[in-house]
């Protein structure tokens, strides 16, 4: 059963009991995949014997040293900090609920998790890789490298951990079990 808004028909409420196990597992897997995904080369490019490659973190670093500091900070936030904090906070929140132990900062963590989730744009980054690949296809040899596979797996983890996380349930759990 579900309850809908009488005006705009948005789903307001579900009667199904949810479990955050998938979210927790995906967050942990995502954290494990995070380091290889941002440091391994994503694409490799070669042209008349010269080779180049890029990684997620390398791209941010290059923008920074090429005096595109604002852009570097924005890309750092959307493709690195936000997904990382989203996964980390999801894991911590799920763990707190599991252990039934709520630190005083639990409400803040839950709020930061939502904020980070809204700025995490790894799926757009993945599309950026495809566009970059096709764009350079005619100028030289482009090949997909290990970082792309890790990034795709990481993206799957990010999607699963946000799809199977039920905020209202986490809030209610905290409200019922919080230390007085």
């Amino acid at each position: 059963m579900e309850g809908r808004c009488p005006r705009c028909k948005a789903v307001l409420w579900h009667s199904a009991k949810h479990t955050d196990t998938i979210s927790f597992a995906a967050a942990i897997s995502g954290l494990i995949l995070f380091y290889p995904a941002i440091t391994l080369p994503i694409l490799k490019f070669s042209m008349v014997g010269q080779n180049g490659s890029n990684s997620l973190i390398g791209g941010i670093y290059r923008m920074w040293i090429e005096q595109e500091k604002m852009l570097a900070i924005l890309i750092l936030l959307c493709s690195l900090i936000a997904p990382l904090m989203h996964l980390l906070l999801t894991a911590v929140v799920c763990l707190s609920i599991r252990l039934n132990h709520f630190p005083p900062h639990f409400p803040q963590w839950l709020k930061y998790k939502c904020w980070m989730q809204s700025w995490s744009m790894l799926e757009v980054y993945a599309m950026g890789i495809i566009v970059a690949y096709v764009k350079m296809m005619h100028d030289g040899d482009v090949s997909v490298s290990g970082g792309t596979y890790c990034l795709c797996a990481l993206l799957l983890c990010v999607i699963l951990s946000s799809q199977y996380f039920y905020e209202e349930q986490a809030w209610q759990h905290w409200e019922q079990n919080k230390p007085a």
Partner: protein
Amino acid sequence: MTTSAQQRGIARCTECGKLSHLPDLGDNSVASCPRCNVALSFRKPQSLQRSWAYTVAAIALLLPANILPILTVISFGQGDPDTIMSGVVKLWVSDLQAIAAIVFIASIAVPVLKLVILIILMLVVQLQLPLNRQQCTVLYRFIHFIGRWSMLDLFMISILVTLVHLGNIATVESGPAATAFAAVVVLTLLAANSFDPRLIWDLDDE
């Protein structure tokens, strides 16, 4: 005719979503959410003013973002700076229509569409235009969903600048439009976030 939560004196917390009764307060006192302690209000505070401010700023920056060069691909010392539009045209003529369409949608159609829809929604609220409320809500959900895809071009620039860094043979440089475009994307995201779609439905209650 449905009764809104506001008419029953119930406010929804913007942070945690808890519904609570909001007593009629004086001008200087604030009620806070019993669950998470954030200040409560029936609608997002100064929703229209903030959305208008972000929208106007985004429109102003849309001009430099589209006129100035965003990317220069230099191979063997040659290469012209590309604006967003000329980049799309170049992709189109080199038989990469699908990618050209994706870049066009993400970098030109989405920001412009988003601003146009936001202006329509804000005018509906301000001038009480008799547009279908349900359709307006669908439009709002649409711009909320597509907004993030404008970042595509910026991520692609970051990838290309690093990938194609081959000294004298080929380099890719970003241009001044990149920063302006980034600002447009962030401002439109903020504008959509500060708009409260419930204001559209409130028109029916007055």
